[in-house]
């Protein structure tokens, strides 16, 4: 049996919870990851001992909070190998990070003659902000197609990139798990003069991220999918691009000076962080990142790959189960269908076994349509999952098929 990372399970109190009188088997990590003790303790300690606003007070607590908040920014910069901590902007989540790019960069630089290139495998959060902006500006949106195996069709990349000013694409698909060859695609996009925005929501829990090696211009991710709290996300952007962008929201913190007539803006990142930020959450995300780097992202990625192939093999061996997407480079989100059982029924039935999976369109309806599977079930693992949990899923699926034995009309 593979060497796993089960020794870290004890750091996650929630993994001891019982669901429907069964031990919880949490296979919905693509929706949100669980939180280890150091993250919980960081939140608690902040509120108990140094809760204060940042960048505003000159008193001891405020200085403590400010330095912890800025330390978190440096940790995140190191985590994604950003050249400068000032390139790390705190947002609420991936969705807000992408909307920030659309509003602060897109609104300023896109015109009705331009093209934005996305892919059919995007999460709705990397489609809708562009559609909204396009309704106002009138640029064209084009999509790279997805092949039946769940990989992007890159055969026509040069032609697709013609006239493109921004390429937005996901690092890892939240449905089929495909890891996209970002560095290769970004290099071609840059030859065409396009900016490249990467949606890293599904990457930061699973693989080392190096924004310089990826060669992108923007990278967005969510704290809550990276063992951190909800309410905190990150947008990384190249400093010179951030500098030429408009502000996002207006308010305190993002200004240099305000008169009644005119405001001059602070430099990045403050320019994009109007108002009191999610201080506790940012600091706790820093703790999550310390925790992950303590294990080692390379080690996590190696195990992710082992557990993924184990899951593909085991799930694929159940008669009637079809795994969507067979990309050779894949991470650990597995959408699947079971013949004759609707994904919602499947999810409810698995829940009676204490197994948490997601069912539905996974906020990626265009991808479901392309694959001809409007709804599916999805199991998604994290480094703290163990092979026995995949076995339990497989056993439960056999059981569910017995209960059901039902062929849809």
């Amino acid at each position, binding site marked *: 049996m593979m060497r796993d990372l089960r020794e870290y399970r004890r750091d996650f109190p929630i993994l001891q919870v019982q669901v*429907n009188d069964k031990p919880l088997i949490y296979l919905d990590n693509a929706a949100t990851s669980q939180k280890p003790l150091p993250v919980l303790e960081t939140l608690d300690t902040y509120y108990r001992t140094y809760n204060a606003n940042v960048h505003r007070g000159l008193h001891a607590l405020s200085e403590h909070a400010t330095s912890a908040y800025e330390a978190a920014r440096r940790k995140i910069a190191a985590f994604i190998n950003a050249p400068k901590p000032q390139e790390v902007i705190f947002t609420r989540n991936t969705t807000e990070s992408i909307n920030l790019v659309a509003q602060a960069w897109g609104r300023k630089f896109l015109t009705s003659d331009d093209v934005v290139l996305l892919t059919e495998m995007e999460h709705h959060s990397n489609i809708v902000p562009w559609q909204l902006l396009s309704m106002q500006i009138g640029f064209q949106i084009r999509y790279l197609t997805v092949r039946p195996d769940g990989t992007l069709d890159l055969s026509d990349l040069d032609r697709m990139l013609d006239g493109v000013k921004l390429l937005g694409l996901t690092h890892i698909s939240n449905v089929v798990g495909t890891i996209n060859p970002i560095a290769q695609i970004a290099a071609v996009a840059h030859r065409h003069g396009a900016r490249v925005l990467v949606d890293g929501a599904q990457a930061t829990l699973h693989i080392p991220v190096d924004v310089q090696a990826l060669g992108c211009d923007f990278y967005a991710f969510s704290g809550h999918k990276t063992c951190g709290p909800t309410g905190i996300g990150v947008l990384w952007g190249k400093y010179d691009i951030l500098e030429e962008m408009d502000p996002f929201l207006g308010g305190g913190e993002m200004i240099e000076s305000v008169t009644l007539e005119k405001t001059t803006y602070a430099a990045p990142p403050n320019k994009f962080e109007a108002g009191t930020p999610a201080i506790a959450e940012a600091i706790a995300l820093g703790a999550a990142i310390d925790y992950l780097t303590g294990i080692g992202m390379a080690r996590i990625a190696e195990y992710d790959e082992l557990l993924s192939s184990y899951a593909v093999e085991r799930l694929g061996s159940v008669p009637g189960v079809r795994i969507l997407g067979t990309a050779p480079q894949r991470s650990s989100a597995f959408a699947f269908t079971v013949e004759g*059982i*609707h*994904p*919602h*029924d499947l999810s*409810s*039935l698995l829940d*009676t*076994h204490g197994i948490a999976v997601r*069912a*539905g*369109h996974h906020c990626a*309806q265009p991808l*479901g349509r392309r694959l001809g599977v*409007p*709804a599916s079930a999805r199991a998604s693992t994290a480094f703290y999952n163990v092979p026995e949990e995949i076995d339990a899923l497989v056993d439960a699926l056999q*059981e*569910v098929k017995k*209960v*059901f034995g*039902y*062929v*849809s*009309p």
Partner: protein
Amino acid sequence: MSARDLYQELILDHARNPQNFGELEHASAHSHRENISCGDTIDLYLLIEDGRVAEVRFDGQGCALSTASASMMTEAIKGKSLDEVQQLTNHFRSYISGEADDLDAELEDFEAFQGVRQLPARVKCVTLPWVTLADLLGQMGE
């Protein structure tokens, strides 16, 4: 809750063999709905004669709960006057939302959905056919 509590035999029977399933060619009213959380669809067709439901059919893509609910619903409303259909709709609503616990004879099969009432995400599945029916009643009232 166990799998059998949730998916009682009656539900599975209706899901396997839905009653009144298919398109109705000469419908006097038709309505289409989607469950936005899963993309499920339902089409509901009614033929009204002399103010009564002479025929009713449904088709579409649904989970076992919504298929069984639609199947039972079509059985319950067949032959009923529009007023009676409206009353049954109200009665279903108050049962599934937990406001009422007792079911009239016409809807007694819906007792099988008792367990589902604790699962708000799945209540939507059971409710979908009834919301579609309410759309139709609204159309005809116009």
